[in-house]
C-alpha cells in the first residue's frame, strides 16, 4: 500500500491559490482514478478535482472552506490492493500522457506544475527540473500572446495582493515575487510595504532558507510515485499549509473576521440525526456569530411597572376596537422607544470603521417569530406614528411576515431592534445586537408580582400586586456607555410608567 498525495492543482497560469469548497468523498471511501474527489473554487470558478489514482481516500488534510496555495497537499489516497502497489508510477505516467490528447481526467494537468513539499525537499535534479520548467514556460508564453499589459499585471498576483498594492500605492511590478512562477505573494507585498524595497528583496531568499526543514515532509514512500510527474518546482518554496492565515494582509484578515463564518464540527453519536441547515437557519447562525464577533455585548436590565399602560389599554380598548385597532403591549413599548431614541443618538447609531454614524431616522426592527425561524420587519420613521398608528404597523408587518409578503425595503434599515421573548413567558432575555446597529431591547414577560409601593401622599410602604416586566437592553459597548444605557432604560421606564394619555 502506498500513499499518493493529492495537491491543490494548478488550474491556470494566473491562479496561485484555491479554496476547497466541497469534499465529494469522505475518508475511507473508495475512489477511482480520475473520479472527482473534491471541488475547489477560485473567484468565479468552480472546478472538480479528480483523484490521481485509484484506491481509498485515506486522509483529508485541508478542510472545506480553507484556502491554500497551489501545490499544497489537500489529501492522501491510499492505493488499495497489491497489484496497484507496483502500479502507481505507470498509472501516473499514463495519466500524464493521456491528458495531452484524449478525454482522460485532469490529474496530469495538476501534477506537472505542482510544487509539492516532498520534491522540494530533494534538491532539484537537472533532468527533472528541465521538464518541470519547460511546461509552465510554454504556457506563460501562450498567455503572453493574448494578454494585455494590464492582464499581465493581473496574472502576476492574486486579487488580494492587487488590492493591498493599490491601497498602498505600490506598483506590483516593482516587487520581487517569491511565489509560484515568480508571482508576488501577500508576504512579498506586505514585506515590500513595511520594509521598503530592500526588505522585500531580502524576503525572497528567506522562505528558501526555511526550506531545509521540510526534509521530514517526505513522509511516505508514495511521493516517489508523484515525483516523476510533479518534479522540482523550480522557484516556489511551498508555503506551509494554511498560508493565507498567517500571511494574509491585516486588512484582509479583518474583512474575513467581519464577514466569514465557519462552524466547527462535532462527532456524531449513535442514534443522532443529522440534517443540513436550511437557509434561514444558516443566515441566522452566520449573523449571530458575526454580530457577537463585532460588538462587545453588554446587557442592562430594568424593571418596569405596567400599571399605567394596563389602565390605558383597558380604558381605550373599546374605542380602539371601534376604529379596528388592536394596541398590544408591544405597541406601547415601540411607541415609547421611538419617542426617546432621538435623545440617545448613540443608541440609534452605529460604529462604522473609525466613524460613528448617527442615524437620521428612527427605524424600529421588530423581531417576528415564524416558528421555525424569525424575521425582523422594520417600522420606518416610527417616530412619526401615533400609538395607534404604531400598533397598526406592527399588526400589518407581523401578519405579512407570517404570510411571507414583506417587500425587501420592509426588512431593511433598522436603527434599533425590539425583540419580545416575554411573549412566550420568558422573564428576561439577553438578545444579540444585529450587525450595523448598536442596541436591541428585549422585553420580558409581563407578570403580576408582589411589590412594595409607597403611598405618594403619606410615604407609607405597602405590599401590592402590580403588573411588571424586566426589560433588557443589549448594547454595543464600543459606542454606548453603561451610563447611556442606564439613562435610556430609565427614561423608557418613566415614559411607560407615566404613559401620556394623548399618545
Amino acid at each position, binding site marked *: 500500500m502506498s500513499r499518493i498525495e493529492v495537491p491543490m492543482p494548478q*488550474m491556470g*497560469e494566473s491562479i496561485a491559490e484555491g479554496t476547497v469548497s466541497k469534499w465529494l468523498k469522505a475518508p475511507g471511501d473508495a475512489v477511482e482514478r480520475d473520479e472527482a474527489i473534491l471541488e475547489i473554487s477560485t*473567484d468565479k*470558478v468552480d*472546478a472538480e478535482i479528480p483523484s490521481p489514482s485509484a484506491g481509498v481516500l485515506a486522509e483529508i488534510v485541508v478542510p472545506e472552506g480553507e484556502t491554500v496555495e497551489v501545490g499544497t497537499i489537500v489529501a492522501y489516497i491510499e492505493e488499495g490492493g497489491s497489484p496497484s502497489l507496483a502500479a502507481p508510477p505507470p498509472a501516473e505516467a499514463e495519466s500524464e500522457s493521456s491528458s495531452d490528447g484524449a*478525454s482522460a481526467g485532469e490529474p496530469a494537468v495538476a501534477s506537472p506544475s505542482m510544487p509539492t513539499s516532498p520534491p522540494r525537499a530533494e534538491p532539484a535534479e537537472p533532468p527533472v527540473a528541465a521538464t518541470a520548467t519547460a511546461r509552465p514556460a510554454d504556457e506563460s508564453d501562450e498567455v503572453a500572446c493574448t494578454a494585455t499589459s494590464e492582464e499581465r499585471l493581473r496574472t502576476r498576483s492574486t486579487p488580494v495582493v492587487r488590492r493591498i498594492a493599490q491601497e498602498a500605492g505600490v506598483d506590483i511590478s516593482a516587487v520581487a515575487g517569491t511565489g509560484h512562477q515568480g508571482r508576488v505573494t501577500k508576504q512579498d507585498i506586505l514585506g515590500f510595504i513595511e520594509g521598503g524595497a530592500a526588505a522585500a528583496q531580502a524576503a525572497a531568499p528567506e522562505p528558501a532558507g526555511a526550506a531545509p526543514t521540510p526534509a521530514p515532509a517526505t513522509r511516505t514512500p508514495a511521493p516517489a510515485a508523484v515525483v516523476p510527474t510533479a518534479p522540482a518546482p523550480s522557484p516556489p518554496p511551498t508555503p506551509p499549509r494554511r498560508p493565507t492565515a498567517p500571511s494574509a494582509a491585516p486588512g484582509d484578515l479583518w474583512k474575513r473576521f467581519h464577514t466569514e463564518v465557519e462552524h466547527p464540527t462535532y462527532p456524531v453519536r449513535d442514534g443522532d440525526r443529522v440534517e443540513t441547515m436550511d437557509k434561514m437557519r444558516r443566515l441566522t447562525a452566520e449573523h449571530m456569530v458575526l454580530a457577537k464577533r463585532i460588538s462587545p455585548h453588554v446587557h442592562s436590565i430594568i424593571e418596569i411597572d405596567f400599571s399605567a399602560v394596563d389602565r390605558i389599554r383597558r380604558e381605550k380598548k373599546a374605542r380602539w376596537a371601534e376604529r379596528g385597532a388592536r394596541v398590544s403591549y408591544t405597541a406601547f413599548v415601540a411607541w415609547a422607544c421611538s419617542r426617546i431614541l432621538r435623545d440617545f443618538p448613540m443608541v440609534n447609531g452605529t460604529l462604522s470603521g473609525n466613524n460613528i454614524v448617527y442615524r437620521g431616522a428612527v427605524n424600529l426592527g421588530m423581531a417576528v417569530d415564524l416558528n421555525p425561524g424569525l424575521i425582523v420587519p422594520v417600522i420606518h420613521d416610527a417616530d412619526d406614528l401615533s400609538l395607534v398608528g404604531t400598533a397598526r404597523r406592527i399588526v400589518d408587518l407581523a401578519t405579512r411576515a407570517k404570510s411571507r409578503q414583506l417587500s425587501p425595503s420592509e426588512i431593511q434599515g433598522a436603527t434599533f431592534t425590539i425583540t419580545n421573548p416575554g411573549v412566550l413567558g420568558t422573564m428576561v432575555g439577553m438578545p444579540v445586537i444585529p450587525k450595523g446597529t448598536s442596541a436591541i431591547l428585549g422585553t420580558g414577560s409581563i407578570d403580576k408580582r408582589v411589590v412594595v409601593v409607597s403611598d405618594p401622599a403619606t410615604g407609607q410602604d405597602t405590599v401590592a400586586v402590580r403588573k411588571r416586566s424586566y426589560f433588557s437592553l443589549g448594547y454595543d459597548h464600543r459606542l454606548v456607555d453603561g451610563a447611556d444605557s442606564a439613562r435610556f432604560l430609565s427614561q423608557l421606564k418613566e415614559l411607560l410608567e407615566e404613559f401620556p394619555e394623548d399618545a
Partner: protein
Amino acid sequence: MAGAVWADRTLAVRYPGRVEYADALAMQAELVERRRRGDVPDTLLLLEHPHVITLGSSAHRDHVLLSEPELAARGIGLFETGRGGDVTYHGPGQLVAYPILDLKPDRKDLHLYLRSLEDVLLGTLSAFAITGRRDDSATGVWVDDAKVAAIGIRVSSGWITSHGFALNTDTDLSFFDTIVPCGLSGRPVTSVSRLLGRTVTPRETAPAVVQALREVFGYGSVDDPGAANSKQSR
C-alpha cells in the same frame, strides 16, 4: 498550434427556449458527461430562465436580501448551484449562455477561460455599438460603471466547462434589487435595451454571441439552427 485544434472543431448551438433552472442544470450535467465521452461536440446552450436567484459557491447569504419565503411569494426561485461566484439573478429578457466546451488540450486555464468569455461578451456588445469594459477587480462585463453581464463557470473533471454567462438584454432590472449582485454592493446593473433606448430581445443578441464565441475560440464551423431564423421572435 492552438488555432489548429479549434479550427477543426464545430461549435453546436442549441436553443432550448425558456428553461427552469433545475432543468438547465440537468441538461448541462448530461452534456458535460457526453462531451467528456466525446459523444457531442462543443455545445453552446442559449436560453432564458424564469425568475430565479442562484447562489454560487462563494455566495454570501447576506447578499440575498429577501428570505426564502419572501422570494417564493414573489415567484422567485432560489438555487444553490455548482458554479463559481456569488449571487446572481436570472429571468426573462436575459440571454443565458452555457458553453459546454472541452478546454483540452490548450485552453486548460481557468482565468484564460474567464477572460475569453469576457472577450465574447465585449464582442457581442460591440455588434450593438456598445463599448463594454472589464473591471480589473471583478469578473464580468461593464458599461461605464454598470454591470451588463455576469460570469460564473464550472470546470468538471476532464476540463469540461459548464455554466457561463448571463447578458442583460431586456431584463427587468428591478429584480436585481432583491440581491447584492455578485456581492458588489453599490454597483448598478444595466441592460442592452436600456443602453440603446430600445427593446433588444435575447433572441436578437444570440447571433452576435455565437459569432463572438466562434471568433474568440477560433471554431472552424458552427452548427447553428438558429442562424437561419434568428429574426423570428421568441
